[in-house]
């Protein structure tokens, strides 16, 4: 495979991840190759334990593969040092977690602004614009525990977008939500993708998978179909 940098946001070649344990090695990911083009909305589906989260973590530079190669926007991740990968996470990637991952001591607005602090940027109204976009302007000074699950996940999405990433990665973003609140999150992801954002989600939710333009099925660490 020869990924073209201007087209592919993600290009992976034979990604393998082996978790070494005392008793046995777990081959969580076994030679996965894939390409995600700019502006795509991709859903990764598959049974529990198939390796979906493992794959998403590798794509998000949150963990290192045991073997294989990965390019993000044409740059090979393995050739970057820790600083380079931190820079990539901070500037080019946005991550949304199943359990929201909001910092409980910070307000909604401060949570959204947190990646700006790490990037040493000023907010210049960006936090307000994003909160308006996810429909939570009125809750900006609330603490996470005062919000519903759906609202928390929308805050998390706003936070993932604050540094204007090239790629949004979401691991079961509706996994902890009921179908009604999940709908709002799905609609938000669709809207963001329609505005040009590249989105990769891992999900068990058929509604979310259906919203994606392309589905990748993962089973036993391999891509099927």
């Amino acid at each position, binding site marked *: 495979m020869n990924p073209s940098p201007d087209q592919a946001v993600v290009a992976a070649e034979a990604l393998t991840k082996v978790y070494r344990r005392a008793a046995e090695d777990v081959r969580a990911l076994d030679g996965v190759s894939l390409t995600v083009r700019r502006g795509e909305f991709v859903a990764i589906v598959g049974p529990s334990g198939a390796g979906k989260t493992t794959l998403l973590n590798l794509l998000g530079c949150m963990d290192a593969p045991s073997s294989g190669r990965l390019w993000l926007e044409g740059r090979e991740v393995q050739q970057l040092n820790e600083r380079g990968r931190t820079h990539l996470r901070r500037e080019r990637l946005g991550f949304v977690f199943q359990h929201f991952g909001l910092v409980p001591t910070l307000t909604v607005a401060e949570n959204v602004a*947190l990646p700006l602090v790490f990037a040493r940027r000023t907010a210049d109204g960006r936090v307000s614009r994003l909160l308006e976009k996810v429909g939570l302007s009125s809750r900006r000074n609330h603490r996470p525990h005062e919000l519903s699950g759906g609202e928390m996940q929308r805050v998390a999405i706003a936070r993932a977008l604050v540094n204007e990433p090239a790629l949004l990665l979401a691991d079961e973003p509706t996994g902890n939500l009921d179908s009604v609140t999940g709908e709002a999150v799905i609609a938000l992801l669709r809207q963001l993708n329609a505005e040009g954002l590249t989105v990769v989600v891992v999900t068990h939710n058929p509604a979310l998978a259906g919203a994606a333009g392309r589905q990748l099925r993962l089973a036993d660490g391999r891509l099927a179909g």
Partner: protein
Amino acid sequence: MNLVVFACRNLARRPWRTALAFVGLAAAIGTLAVLSALTAGYERELRKELDRSGVQLMLVPLGCPYDAAARVLKGRVLDASLPAEALAQVRRDPAVAAAAPLLLCAQVRTNEDRADLWVGIDESAPALKPWWRVQRGKAWFSSTNGVILGSEVATLEMRAPGDRLYCPGADATFTVDGVLDRSGTSDDSLFFVPLGRAQQLFGQPGRLTAIAIRLRDPALLAEAARRLQAIPGAQVVTTTEVMGVFQNLIGTVRALLSAVAIVAVTVGCLTVLNTLLAAVLERAAELALLRALGASRSQVVLALAVEALLLTSAAALAGLLGAAFGGAWIQDAVRQWIPLAPERLATPLSLPLIGQSILLGVGTGLVAVLYPAVCALRMAPAEATRTA
């Protein structure tokens, strides 16, 4: 929002735990500061008292020299005495600038439960007492029946110059010639009379309790001491040795104070260590989350360090403020258990001491942050997706 705000919020997350760590460290640093200032001040005051006398050597009767010197300096009576020829020999020595003979005699007042100390001196005494200043009356005895009173004694006896004063032990009546200024030394509680008169009245003709000596040059000390040592029935004590006596006396007390300080500091530091360690380890997933959001390793460590330093430097400051304002009070309380405590003990905190206390607090914070920081650095950001 910045890292300081972020750190403050984390400290406020468990207010009781933070408060306990804060109080523990503040108390430890306060205790350390007060006790260190106390020990330093104690030594300094003693040394000042000795230096002020301008006396470098003392000739005392054979016996325990340290005991003798300590007694003379503190204005107490000796059992043995020196022969009168000793004074002439001392004054002949080329290294001696001034030699003041003393005869001390205690007059016990059984009905008042105290003893008056009468001291016989001659004209050479004021030369060795730079602070010897007359407040009222004459500077020297106008007759052999004259007496000069220390300031405390004058108040106690309610006597002014010209008044008469009866000494029951000698069965003699004296005329008060002068009253001395307050000096803060043992002189304040002494009765001074002419040496010859004292020897006669107290049945010690020709005898002396001690001879205080000032040299022409302190460098001559060893040489002079060797020569004076040869005087029969006498021995030489240097004030440096006397200082040693005092230090031995307080040695045990000081060791005890240090032990208290060390225990307090150890407990305080361990409390902070425990608090910060627990606070960081229970937030391991949150730290991984920060990494996932784009924080670098150094930013995570910095966030933790700011948190630790805020807590420990605030505690160090509080401890020092407590020591500065409550220190005098604590020192007064402790003073009762210290032998030979000087009048003024309340010692202000010195700059090095303040620096040392702040360093200790801040150092504790940094150590407390180091270990969990290393853990946080090892963690892959992926941990965040599993647990957060």
